[in-house]
C-alpha cells in the first residue's frame, strides 16, 4: 500500500495529521505510475508535508486525491525534463516490508492503516481497519492511521471519540490496534489474494485445486499467495483483478497502467511520478529531500524528555503500558491543596530538567524542540496573564498561534505564481475561520470586518510571514470562486465583512425583526408616549451590537441593509438614530386593503 486515501478539509486541502506541517504546494501537477499516466490524476495540486506527498485533483478533489507517506518512500529521483517532457520527481516505494511489528517507525504504521486508495477490494477492509470501542458511549472509532501501538506512549496525541468527544485511555487504543493486527489472516498475504482464493475455492468446490491460482499464460496452478507464476513468471494479478474489480475499472478502461488497480500495490507499483507541468519541481524536490532527511514522522513517537522522578513510567513500551495504569499511582493518592502543590512542584522540576537538558548542546535542543516550543508558548501565555492587559483579541491570537498549523507562505508555493499563493491563502483563511475549535467567527457573532480579521490573522501568524492587506483582500475575494464556506460581503458604505456562507441577508433581517417583535410584549424601561404594544420600540446600533454580539460598525451596516430591504425604518431623534419595524409601509398596506 503505497498510495493512501487522502482526507480533505472543507477548503479542499489535505487535512493534516497531528504534528504534520505543510512544506510546499505546487499546482499543475500530474501523476504517473511507472511509465504511464494515471487517468483522472492529471491536473491537480501537489502538497508536500512533513509526513506525506499528496495529490489533490483539481476537478474531482474529493474523489481523486492520494497521499504517499514519506516513510514508505525508499528514495526520490529527479528528472529535469527534456523538450516537451516536463520535469518529474519519482518516488520509489520501500521494498515489501518485513513483519508488521518489525521496526516500528518504518512499517508499523502502515500495517494498521485502513485507508486504501480507491479501495478495490472492499471485503479486505474490515480485518485491516483497526477500531477501538469507546468505553463511554460504545461507539466504534477508527484507530488513527498514524497510530503505532509499538511506539505509542502517554505523549502520543489521541483523537477523542467521534460520538461523545471523550478521549480514550491509551491502553484501550493500543489493545484495539494490536487486536486488529492479530486478526489479520497472514500479514504477508495481501488481502485481495485472500479474497481471490476464496473465490477460486467457491468456484471449484471439492476440487483438488480449491486453493490454488491458475496462471493465465501457462495454466500452472500456483499457490494463492504468489503474485507471479512459478513456471513462466507471468503476473497472476491482472487476471484476478479483471474478474473481481472490473466494475471499478469501467471508467478507466483505456488506462495505460492497469497494475494500479492491482491488489498487490506494494509489489506492483514500481514508482509514482509527480509530473510538474507548471514548474516548481526544484523546490519540491529539495524540500522533499529535506523532509526525508528530517523524518518528522519519527518525532511523534520519539521518547519524551526524561522525567526525573519516575524514570521509567513513560518509557514503557505498549505492552507494559497495557498492564500498568497509564499514570503513576502515587500522584492519585494525594488530593486537595497538597496534591495541587505537589503537582506544581513536579511540573516545575520537569520543566527545569527539560530546559537544562535541552540547552546542553544543540543536538539535544533539536530533538526536544517540540517540548521546548510548547513550554515557551506556555510561559508566554502565563506572562500575558500576569500583565493583565490581554484583550480578548490577543488571547485569541496567542491561542491560535500554535494551532495555526496550516500556514500558507509565499516561499512555500512554487512557480512564483501569484494566483496560486492567493488561492492557497484563501483556502487557508477559510479553514482557519471555519475551524470550530477556534470559533473565530462565532466569537464575533458570526460576522466580522475584513480589517479585524486581517489583524487577528496576522497576529495568529505570530509576527512572521505576515500577509499584506492587498493579498489578503484578494484571497478573501477568491472565496466565492473557490466555493468555500465563508463569504466576503460588501456593505453599501464599502465596508467589507466576512461571514459564513449560510448567513444570508434574509436570515439577518429575520432575526432583527423577531427581536423587534419581542418588544411588543415587554414594556419599555421608561414611560413612552406611543403605544408600544402596537409599535414596539426603536433600537440603536449600539443596542443591536450588544444584542447580537456584533461590532457597532457591523450593526449599523446590518440595520441599514435591513432598512434598504424595506424591513426597518429609521427615526432621527435627539438621542440619535433609532431603527423601527417598518410600520410606514405596513400601515399603507393596511389602508389599501381596507
Amino acid at each position: 500500500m503505497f498510495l493512501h486515501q487522502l482526507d480533505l478539509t472543507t477548503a479542499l486541502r489535505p487535512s493534516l495529521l497531528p504534528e504534520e506541517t505543510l512544506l510546499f504546494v505546487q499546482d499543475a501537477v500530474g501523476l504517473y505510475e511507472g511509465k504511464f499516466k494515471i487517468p483522472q490524476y492529471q491536473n491537480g495540486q501537489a502538497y508536500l508535508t512533513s509526513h506525506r506527498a499528496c495529490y489533490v485533483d483539481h476537478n474531482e478533489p474529493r474523489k481523486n486525491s492520494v497521499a504517499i507517506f514519506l516513510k514508505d518512500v525508499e528514495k526520490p529521483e529527479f528528472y529535469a525534463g527534456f523538450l516537451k517532457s516536463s520535469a518529474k520527481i519519482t518516488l520509489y516505494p520501500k521494498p515489501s516490508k518485513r513483519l508488521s511489528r518489525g521496526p516500528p517507525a518504518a512499517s508499523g504504521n502502515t500495517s494498521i492503516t485502513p485507508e486504501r486508495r480507491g479501495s478495490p477490494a472492499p471485503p479486505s477492509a474490515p480485518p485491516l481497519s483497526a477500531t477501538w470501542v469507546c468505553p463511554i458511549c460504545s461507539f466504534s472509532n477508527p484507530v488513527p492511521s498514524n497510530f503505532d501501538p509499538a511506539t505509542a506512549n502517554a505523549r502520543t496525541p489521541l483523537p477523542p471519540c467521534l460520538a461523545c468527544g471523550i478521549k480514550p485511555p491509551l491502553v484501550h487504543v493500543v489493545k484495539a490496534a494490536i487486536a486488529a493486527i492479530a486478526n489479520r489472516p497472514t500479514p504477508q498475504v495481501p488481502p485481495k489474494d485472500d479474497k481471490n482464493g476464496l473465490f477460486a475455492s467457491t468456484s471449484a468446490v471439492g476440487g483438488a485445486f480449491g486453493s490454488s491460482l491458475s496462471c493465465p499464460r501457462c495454466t500452472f496452478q500456483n499457490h494463492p499467495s504468489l503474485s507471479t507464476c512459478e513456471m513462466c513468471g507471468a503476473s497472476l494479478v491482472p487476471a484476478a483483478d479483471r474478474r473481481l474489480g472490473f466494475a471499478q475499472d469501467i471508467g478507466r478502461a483505456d488506462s495505460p497502467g492497469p497494475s494500479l488497480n492491482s491488489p498487490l500495490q506494494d509489489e506492483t507499483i514500481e514508482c509514482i511520478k509527480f509530473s510538474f507541468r507548471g514548474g516548481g519541481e526544484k523546490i519540491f524536490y529539495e524540500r522533499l529531500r529535506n523532509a526525508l532527511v528530517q523524518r518528522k514522522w519519527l518525532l511523534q513517537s520519539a521518547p519524551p524528555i526524561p522525567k526525573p522522578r519516575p524514570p521509567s513510567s513513560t518509557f514503557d513500551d505498549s505492552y507494559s503500558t497495557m498492564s500498568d495504569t497509564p499514570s503513576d499511582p502515587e500522584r492519585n493518592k494525594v488530593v486537595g491543596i497538597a496534591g495541587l502543590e505537589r503537582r506544581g512542584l513536579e511540573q516545575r522540576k520537569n520543566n527545569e530538567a527539560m530546559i537544562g537538558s535541552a540547552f546542553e548542546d544543540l543536538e539535544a535542543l533539536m530533538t526536544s524542540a517540540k517540548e521546548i516550543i510548547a513550554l515557551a508558548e506556555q510561559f508566554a501565555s502565563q506572562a500575558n496573564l500576569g500583565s493583565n492587559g490581554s484583550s480578548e483579541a490577543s488571547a485569541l491570537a496567542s491561542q491560535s498561534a500554535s494551532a495555526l498549523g496550516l500556514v500558507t507562505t509565499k516561499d512555500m508555493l512554487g512557480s512564483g505564481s501569484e494566483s496560486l499563493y492567493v488561492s492557497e491563502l484563501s483556502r487557508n483563511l477559510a479553514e482557519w475561520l471555519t475551524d470550530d475549535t477556534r470559533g473565530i467567527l462565532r466569537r464575533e457573532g458570526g460576522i466580522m470586518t475584513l480589517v479585524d480579521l486581517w489583524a487577528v490573522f496576522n497576529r495568529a501568524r505570530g509576527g512572521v510571514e505576515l500577509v499584506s492587506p492587498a493579498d489578503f483582500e484578494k484571497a478573501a475575494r477568491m472565496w466565492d470562486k473557490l466555493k468555500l464556506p465563508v463569504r466576503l460581503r460588501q456593505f453599501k458604505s464599502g465596508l467589507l465583512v466576512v461571514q459564513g456562507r449560510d448567513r444570508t441577508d434574509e436570515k439577518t433581517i429575520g432575526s432583527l425583526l423577531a427581536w423587534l417583535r419581542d418588544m411588543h410584549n415587554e414594556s419599555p424601561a421608561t414611560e413612552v408616549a406611543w403605544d408600544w404594544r402596537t409599535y414596539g420600540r426603536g433600537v440603536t446600533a449600539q443596542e443591536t451590537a450588544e444584542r447580537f454580539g456584533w461590532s457597532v460598525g457591523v450593526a449599523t451596516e446590518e440595520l441599514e441593509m435591513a432598512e434598504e430591504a424595506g424591513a426597518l425604518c429609521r427615526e432621527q431623534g435627539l438621542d440619535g438614530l433609532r431603527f423601527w419595524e417598518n410600520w410606514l409601509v405596513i400601515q399603507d398596506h393596511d389602508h389599501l386593503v381596507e
Partner: protein
Amino acid sequence: MTTISSPSIQHLTPSTTTATTTTGDPTPSTTTTADGFQFPPIYSFPPFFTLQPNAQTRTSQLTSWSTLIQSYCRAHHLFALSLIDALPTPLFTNAQLARKLSLRDARTVLSWMCTPEGGNRAEWITAGGGKAAKGGQGQEGEGSAVCWIYWRRPEEWAVAVEEWVERTGQRGTVLTLYELTESDATRREEFYGMDMELLQKSLQVCVKRGKAQIFGAEGSEGVKFF
C-alpha cells in the same frame, strides 16, 4: 392636464375618504385634537416624523403624510397652508410624542404633494399670485412659504360648484363670487369660505369647458352657468 389628472383624482378621492373613516376607529393610540379631528394611527409612530431614505418606504411615508394633510385641511376647512405658521400646529407637531416634522422635511412633503407623483395635491403660491408652472415647483417653492392644499383639485371644485348650481336650479342666473363662497345658501357646501383666488381658478376650469362665463371687473366678478 385635466384629462390626465382626472383618473388619479378618481383613484385618490376614495382613499382620502377611507383615511378619514380609519381615523374614526376607536384606537387607543389615536391622537385627537380639541376640535375633534382624529389623527391616523401612524401619527403616533415616532419614525413617521423622520423622512426615510429608502425610496419605497419614503413614498409610502409621503403618501401617508399627504393623506393626513389633506384630511386635516378638510376637517379644518383650510384651503392653503402657510408652512411657517402650520409647523407648530398639531398637524406637524405631535406634542404627545415630543416629535415634530422639521421645516425642511415639511417642505419636502409639500413639494412632493405638488408633483404628479404626489397626485398634484398641493401647489406653491408664488409671490406674484400668478399661476406657478407645474414643472419644478420644488425648487421654485423653496422661497415661498404658502401653498394650496388641494384636498379637492380645481377641476373637482368646478364640478362641485356646477353640481350645486344644478341642484339649486340657478342655471342661467348670474352669481357673484362672494355669493358663492360667503352666502348662507352655500354655508353647508364644502366650498363655503373658499379663497377667492382658488375659486377663480376653479371657475376658470368651467369657463374653459364652456360651462360658465365670468363677467365684471376685478374684485366684483359674477359668474353665469349655462
